[in-house]
Each structure stands twice: as C-alpha cells, then as structure tokens.
C-alpha cells in the first residue's frame, strides 16, 4: 500500500511540476490531466469511489477538455521569458520552499498531537485511517438530506455560470462599431 502511495505521489508531484514548468500550454494541460488521474487514484485508495469517478468525469473529462479546446482554438505562441522573470521564478521557488519548511512540520506536529490526545473524532486512532466508504449511496443520502440547500444553491451557481459564460463569449452581432474605434485610434 505504501509502495503504491509512493509511486502515485511521485506521479502527482512530477505532473504538477510539469504543469508549471513546461513552456507549451498544451503540454501543461496534459500534465494537469496526469495529475488529476493521480489524485483520482488517491481518492480510490482512500475508498472515496464516488469522488474518484466524479474527479475523472468532471475535472479530466470536462474542465481540462475545455481548456485544451480553447488552447487549440486560440493557437498561442510559446511563452518567452525575460531575465527579470527568471529571477522572479527563482524567488518564487525559494518562497515556496520556505512555505513547505514551515507547513510540513506543522502538519506533522498537529498529527502527532492528535495521536497523543486521541481526540480524532469517531475514528479515535488519530493518524491512522478509519475505513469509511465514500459510496455513492452514502454520499447521495447526505447530499439530499443534510446538504440539500447547498446542493440546490450549487445548481443555481452553475446556471448563473452558464448564462454568464454565454453572455461573455457571445460575439457582437454588429462588428462595425469596433472597426470605427480602430479607425479613430
């Protein structure tokens, strides 16, 4: 199990780095797909079957496909870098490293204190996993009873997003005014 975790974690980190580091946006998008699949594998390892499937359907199957689609439509050039930006990236990496230096010990500390006090909720064992099956039935039941208001609200949010996206992306019916603006300036 820990070996599987290590391999998947390596895949997740390498693909995440490739999203940031690769110059061609389509390569970055492919890296993101690999990353999402790795995260989905983690969900499956933690018995969150429903989320693992939804992760692939929604993230990899819809959102990133949309991104790839747009990249193909826009036909962008590869990003070029100036010297100042290289300095910026080095600084950013240093800052990220410092953040990790702080964050990782904090996580360890918090987990250890949980282990000592044994106050980890229903599981009680602290740093170890409790088997709770994220089955479709269980999540659906919670979603339609306790969280039904949030569920409906997210439906409204999606509706608003669709309308907004259509309004934003709609081409102007008359292109003449824009031509005039260009002619004036």
């Amino acid at each position, binding site marked *: 199990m*820990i070996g599987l*975790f290590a391999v998947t*974690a390596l895949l*997740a*980190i390498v693909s*995440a*780095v490739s*999203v*940031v580091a690769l110059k061609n*946006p389509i390569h970055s*998008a492919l890296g993101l797909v690999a*990353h999402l699949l790795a*995260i989905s594998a*983690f969900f499956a390892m*933690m*018995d*969150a079957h429903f*989320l693992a499937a939804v*992760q692939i359907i*929604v*993230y990899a199957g*819809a*959102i*990133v496909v*949309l*991104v790839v689609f747009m*990249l193909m439509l*826009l036909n*962008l050039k590869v*990003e070029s870098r100036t010297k100042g930006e290289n300095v*910026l990236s080095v600084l*950013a990496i240093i800052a*990220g*490293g410092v*953040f*990790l230096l702080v964050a990782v010990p904090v*996580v*360890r500390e918090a*987990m250890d204190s949980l282990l000592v006090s044994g106050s980890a*909720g*229903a*599981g009680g064992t602290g*740093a*170890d*996993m*409790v088997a*709770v099956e*994220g089955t479709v039935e*269980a999540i659906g039941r*919670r*979603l339609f009873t306790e*969280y039904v208001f*949030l569920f409906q609200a*997210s439906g409204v949010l999606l509706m608003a*997003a669709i309308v*907004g*996206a259509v309004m*934003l*992306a709609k081409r102007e019916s008359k292109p003449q005014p824009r031509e005039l*603006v260009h002619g004036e300036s």
Partner: protein
Amino acid sequence: MVPVSLYLTLSAVIFTIGVIGVVVRRNAIVVFMCIELMLNAVNLSFVALSQMHGELDGQISVFFVMVVAAAEAAVGLAIIISVFRSMNSIETTDTSDLRL
C-alpha cells in the same frame, strides 16, 4: 494503511507548486490550470481528513469544490476568450492596461 500526515504533506507540496505557478507564469490559461492544482491539493487533504475522522462531510465538501471549479472554468475561460478578442493576447503582462 498510509498515515494521514503523508497525504497532508503531499497536499502541501502540490499546493506550493500551484502557488509558484500562479506567481511565475504569464499565460492566463496556465495560471488557471495552476489554480486547479491548488484546488486539487485542498481536495486531497479534505478527503484524507474525512477518512481520518470517519465522516463523509469532507468528501461532500470536495463535491462542492468540484461544482465551483466547473462554474469557475466556464466563466473564467469565457473571460479569457473575450480578453483574447480585444487584446489578441492572453499574457497577464499584456493585459495590465486599464483601457481597451
């Protein structure tokens, strides 16, 4: 079983990579993808903590995060397209002007 702290550490690493990407990259779509990386890191820790507590609430939060991410993708990409139409570029440095 894998201890939760490993998952949380991994989540922190991925989140950091996402933050670095947002700071460093200029292409708006890549910045968008780095934001997705950060969201995924948070999702991972949500599920890990949900497992630790033996409750499903964390997984349901992840579900809502995905819904919001989908809405964000639709609106965000539409904005990027309209920016590309008027500026003919989606580099964040080119779109710093306050006029069309």
